[in-house]
């Protein structure tokens, strides 16, 4: 059997930001001290992160899985005379890091020149640390379980399922070009459903403070949606006016960000986005805004660049794309601090997106809908064509028929096939809610802040029965 057994790992010293910065600096020193660095132009970006994540998962109204991890990782990108390679490890022993560095430099030296390598990240001020709450970082299992109990107990006659988690991230960056930065952030989320025998209703809350979560209130919302959906009718497919809840809007914004405002997709001609053109309704302004007081984000990106706040869409006009340093070099632009892991392949994406809210209360969004649908959440959305951003998916956890401004009852889940760009096009946005909050668009919490949205037309192409 061929396998690899490392030597005994010595005690880690990585506990706080100072330790992380010292480790990042040390990796840069080791790169610069490498024999290969004496004979070639060697550059490096080093990102060291520590994640403490714990998640309490419940189903059938009891906690069945309760997990936690505390891990440190080192990410390393090197360039040897412009030839690049990337490596990552959770092994932070010095001898392991030396081995990793030499292997990565050797790997890089064997490659063709990377034409899009923008150089190691240069010094740039990172203005502030992220939103960080020590009590959330140190949350105990009992604190999570108590809140789960609150979610479950509000509806003893229903079946509850979901999760409540707390996460703390500490990170430090160092580069051979002199950039150094540290940051930290926390997040807490409760996301769950209550179920009857025939229906489910969902609720979601995310904040950087566990103390902000009102799990009982979330449970109440979920239970109410489930009860109101227990008796439903199947609706014929067709084009309907819709009021989308924040979760559904969050899904739309995620797809716009990943497939449209991603500068790499744009450079490759696969994005719908046309800079300077009014592709959306004038009511639509979409921001990438890590400076929002609610934002859950480190203050720098995966390349160590400061994360910027900037408009993606301003009054319907596409203004900017999300860049990392690679796409910025290709496009002759500046990085927006939107680098993500794997970005050399996947591109840069906005990860603190928000749709600027309107002034309409959520209840008023349906007030003069003659006949339409109120959609709580989308499910399993997938792109049919990135350039037109035609997406198919389903509704879930509460879909209601609206008639003459009132909820007329629940309907079964529906499948849609709809261009997200066209749905938000000129004349299509009737009103925007004032209820913006962190919402989970089926791709993870803490990414999108979205309000409810009333749209003139949405193309439903099938129901649960086909």
């Amino acid at each position: 059997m061929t396998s690899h057994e490392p030597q005994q790992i010595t005690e880690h010293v990585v506990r706080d930001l100072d330790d992380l910065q010292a480790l990042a600096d040390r990796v840069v020193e080791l790169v610069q001290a490498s024999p290969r660095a004496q004979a070639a132009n060697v550059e490096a970006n080093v990102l060291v992160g520590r994640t403490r994540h714990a998640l309490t998962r419940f189903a059938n109204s009891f906690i069945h899985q309760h997990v936690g991890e505390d891990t440190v990782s080192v990410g390393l990108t090197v360039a040897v005379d412009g030839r690049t390679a990337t490596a990552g490890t959770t092994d932070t022993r010095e001898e392991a890091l030396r081995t990793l560095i030499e292997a990565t430099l050797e790997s890089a030296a064997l490659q063709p020149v990377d034409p899009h390598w923008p150089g190691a990240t240069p010094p740039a001020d990172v203005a502030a640390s992220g939103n960080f709450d020590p009590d959330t970082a140190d949350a105990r299992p009992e604190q999570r379980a108590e809140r789960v109990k609150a979610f479950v107990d509000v509806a003893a006659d229903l079946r509850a399922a979901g999760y409540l988690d707390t996460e703390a991230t500490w990170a430090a960056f160092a580069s051979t070009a002199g950039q150094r930065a540290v940051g930290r952030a926390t997040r807490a989320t409760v996301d769950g459903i209550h179920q009857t025998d025939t229906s489910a209703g969902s609720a979601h809350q995310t904040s950087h403070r566990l103390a902000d979560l009102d799990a009982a209130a979330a449970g109440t919302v979920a239970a109410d949606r489930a009860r109101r959906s227990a008796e439903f009718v199947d609706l014929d497919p067709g084009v309907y006016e819709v009021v989308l809840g924040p979760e559904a809007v969050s899904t739309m914004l995620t797809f716009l960000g990943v497939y449209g405002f991603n500068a790499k997709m744009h450079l490759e001609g696969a994005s719908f986005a046309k800079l300077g053109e009014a592709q959306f309704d004038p009511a639509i302004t979409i921001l990438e805004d890590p400076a929002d007081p609610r934002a859950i984000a480190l203050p720098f990106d995966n390349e160590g660049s400061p994360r910027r706040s900037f408009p993606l869409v301003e009054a319907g006009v596409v203004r900017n794309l999300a860049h990392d340093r690679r796409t910025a070099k290709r496009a002759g632009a500046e990085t927006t601090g939107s680098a993500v892991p794997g970005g050399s392949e996947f591109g840069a994406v906005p990860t603190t997106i928000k749709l600027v809210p309107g002034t309409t209360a959520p209840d008023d969004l349906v007030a003069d809908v003659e006949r339409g649908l109120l959609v709580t959440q989308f499910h399993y959305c997938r792109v049919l064509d990135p350039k037109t951003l035609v997406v198919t998916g389903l509704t879930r956890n509460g879909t209601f028929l609206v008639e003459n401004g009132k909820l007329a009852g629940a309907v079964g889940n529906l499948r849609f096939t709809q261009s997200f760009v066209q749905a938000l096009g000129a004349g299509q946005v009737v009103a925007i809610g004032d209820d913006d909050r962190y919402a989970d668009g089926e791709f993870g919490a803490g990414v999108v802040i979205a309000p409810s949205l009333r749209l003139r037309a949405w193309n439903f192409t099938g129901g649960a029965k086909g």
Partner: protein
Amino acid sequence: MYDYARAAVEAALAAGAAYADARVVIRRHERIAAQNGELESVTHAEDAGVGVRALVGSSWGFAATGELTDVAAKKAGAEATATAKASALVPGSAIELADVPIAQDVYETPHAENPFDVPLAEKVELVVGVTRTMHGVEGIGVATAHLGFWDTDKWFVSSQGHRIHQHLVEAGGGMDATAVGEQETQRRSYPQSFGHYETGGFEVIRRFDLPGNALRVAEEAVQLLDADVCPSGEMDLVLESSQLALQIHESVGHAIELDRILGWEAAFAGTSFLDLQQLGSLRYGSELMNITADATIPGALSTFGYDDEGTPAKAVDIVREGTWVGVLSGRDTAHLAGLEPGGMVRADGFNRLPMVRMTNVGLKPGEGTLDQIIADTKHGVYMATNRSWSIDDRRLNFQFGCEIGWEIVDGKLGRMVKNPTYTGITPRFWASLDRLAGPDEWVPWGVPNCGKGQPMQVGHTGHPASPGRFRNVRVGVKG
């Protein structure tokens, strides 16, 4: 490495766990990607640590640490139990484990050529070369290729006496060409979208013959821009085997996960339309539908010696001649349902809780060939290579898009069509299966990106399939 796992288990028991197990995992991953004749990235990742699982009452507690020390392992063990104990605030019925043989064993993936021993330059030249070829075709905007390899060692210890070391080797990759038009993009991939993966060494990659397929893939992508749109309506649908593999994954593989059937995944991935009361009687599909979950198929992506609970790999009948007869299970879910544990519990690395995952969930082959199926089809569409997939939270209502299609008219392939899609309801769709090609066209397709669980885990699943025909399917859904 066993010492760290044992230390974690002992600490969990000392803290009050009724049962505990631990895995020390060291996993190496290499990914090489190229675009348009240039190298895009070479990435090496290694993660190592110990994850320990403790059972107290109605909850699993799990803790993981990247520190491979005796101290850290014991701390993780104690934390796993403390976490499980905290769950008692919201209790259910106590979890019990179905019996399995207590194994002390070693297992290694058969492989001829460890991918990590193959010179990097050779791997780089392969992906750069095929993207250069594809990008050289007029009309191709983006041509990408990638290779991915995993080399994983796992040492498993349980409080019941398991002691298992496994060394697993996985290899795969693929390429795609995207033609960019004024209003749309069209893509062709090979061997399948997102790449095809197997257990084994670099010999897997050599068998793909990426260079021999590069030109065809690119030319088809360009041709698609000018192709007619797939017709709409109810008609016969012939699926190429990799698309049928994904159809199995979504409408059978996830639906038969016992944790999902029991409601354990309800909030995120959803539940299942299957009710255990119907096990053994529910009509899942036509008599041609014979599905097994088999973790022993040589070379398939979900082939291993033992799952992450120490249960030996096995083959389990899931659908027999159209009747639903089996599930994917672990020791806890199987006990709850009164079934034999299936050996289907695995975790994505040391820091994730093991959970029910698909093994090689595939269709047994039928007879004849794809050509014969097409010759036997009066009017329909032949679709190949997945482009999009979506299914509802009970695994009933699905819609798939493929990269390419060809109209079938009077037993012959006709014009190429673009944006082919089809939609259906799971048991109704499978009931319409009336032709299935034979063993010569049966491929053990491997999917490396199956998402499940919270925190999200990425699983590697296998789906052997041969081409098949479905009657009167709704084709060509308009956006």
